[in-house]
């Protein structure tokens, strides 16, 4: 594949959306993408995250660098966050005489995980994140996708990651919301609705060949397979709906990685680097082809690769300067 030219002139830049799919701690492979975008000075206009992808978006949107996110993960994510059984709920699965299980229940108690999110994000609100960030959840009563755009960040991330029935859903604005995996595991459609021109979507996949053993392993494999079909159906629809380019990057893992496998973080990020390396050309090509398809703005001085100001830079044709928002928030 020919490597596209590095942009050396100031051009009109497309609106760029990043979509991070579900994948637990594997979504931290997205740090490689953020590093690449920063190197290339490519601003991001929107992030949409689901489940593990929601956590990564929230951390980046809160102002953490990829290195800080990795360090925080190594330090804070622990198995103890995910290992506190709710015995009443667990027994309630087998018999209503022994315990109680309903739509507000979870096999695991959420207190420690919620507490950790509260500690990371404090009182920060989702609408305060930059770039603008949306989190995908699912209404447990209706199965509809619900995209959170504002409100307490810690609870929004919890809801997007609340993998029912392992964790109980979050009650937000009167609705019980659980993991976005059940409605849009890689929520590209949300970026299309917000008129992003170039969408870079990361899909984290475990390509495990061994037969699942035990209840949880079989259950998770079933959910994973269902999610794959849902993702591909939605991706097809997205390509039909979209006007420019969706760069879909599959990040493959050859073994199962649990949410608490923090020791895998360096390997996860390395998998991300490999996947991004393979798609750098497609990302740059999607951006430059958009720029070429637009009329050039006024003649601008041409930068060079050695010029620290060279690279992608947002330019906007100002028809009504008072109404134009700053686009360099990424």
């Amino acid at each position, binding site marked *: *594949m*020919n490597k596209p030219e590095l942009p050396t002139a100031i051009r009109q830049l497309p609106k760029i959306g990043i979509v991070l799919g579900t994948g637990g701690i594997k979504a931290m492979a997205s740090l490689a993408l953020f590093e690449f975008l920063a190197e290339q000075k490519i601003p991001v206009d929107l992030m949409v995250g689901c489940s593990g992808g929601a956590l990564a978006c929230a951390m980046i949107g809160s102002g953490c660098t990829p290195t800080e996110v990795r360090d925080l993960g190594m330090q804070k994510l622990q198995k103890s966050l995910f290992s506190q059984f709710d015995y009443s709920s667990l027994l309630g699965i087998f018999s209503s005489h022994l315990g109680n299980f309903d739509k507000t229940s979870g096999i695991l108690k959420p207190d420690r995980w919620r507490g950790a999110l509260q500690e990371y994000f404090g009182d920060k609100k989702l609408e305060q994140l930059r770039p603008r960030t949306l989190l995908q959840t699912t209404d447990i009563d209706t199965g509809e996708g619900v995209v959170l755009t504002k409100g307490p960040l810690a609870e929004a991330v919890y809801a997007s990651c609340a993998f029912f029935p392992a964790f109980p859903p979050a009650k937000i604005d009167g609705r019980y919301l659980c993991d976005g995996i059940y409605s849009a595991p890689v929520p590209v459609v949300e970026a299309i609705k917000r008129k992003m021109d170039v969408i870079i979507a990361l*899909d984290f996949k475990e390509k495990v060949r061994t037969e699942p053993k035990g209840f949880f392993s079989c259950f998770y494999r079933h959910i994973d397979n269902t999610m794959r*079909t849902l*993702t*591909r*159906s*939605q*991706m*097809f*629809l997205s*390509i*039909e709906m*979209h006007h*420019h*380019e*969706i*760069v*879909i990057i*599959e990040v493959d893992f050859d073994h199962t990685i649990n949410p608490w496998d923090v020791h895998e973080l360096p390997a996860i990020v390395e998998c991300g680097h490999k996947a991004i390396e393979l798609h750098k050309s*497609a990302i740059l*090509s*999607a951006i430059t*082809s958009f720029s070429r*398809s637009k009329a050039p703005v006024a003649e601008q001085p041409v930068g060079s690769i050695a010029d620290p100001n060279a690279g992608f830079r947002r330019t906007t044709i100002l028809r009504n300067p008072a109404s134009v928002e700053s686009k360099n928030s990424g």
Partner: protein
Amino acid sequence: MEVIKEKSSEMQFLHLRGRLDHENAQVLEESLSKLIENGARQLIIDCSQIEFINNAGLRVLLGLAKKILDLEGRIALHSPSLQAKETFDRTGFSMVSRIYDTREEAIAGIAGSGLFSASRDERHIISN
């Protein structure tokens, strides 16, 4: 992008070669539309030499399929290159359209329903 055409009886065979992206999607679309305007109704497309295909390329193939199906024609894709196969799988394209492994299978399949055809695993119940 290069399109090599070959006609045999009622079937029009196409070989797509090179990159199928924003740079050449429009040219390809025009070229394929012209074929339909000139009466082609059964298209068999060899994808073995597609070096790169992105959304723009997929939209051309989909647009072509819609046009030809509207005219009650048939279209089938076969022998995808590794890159094309990965893209067809990743984007869900292969869920709605069977991609045949060989030209012979595509020829046999086009007699059925072509693009948006029954998937490989569909079972037919024949009633009396």
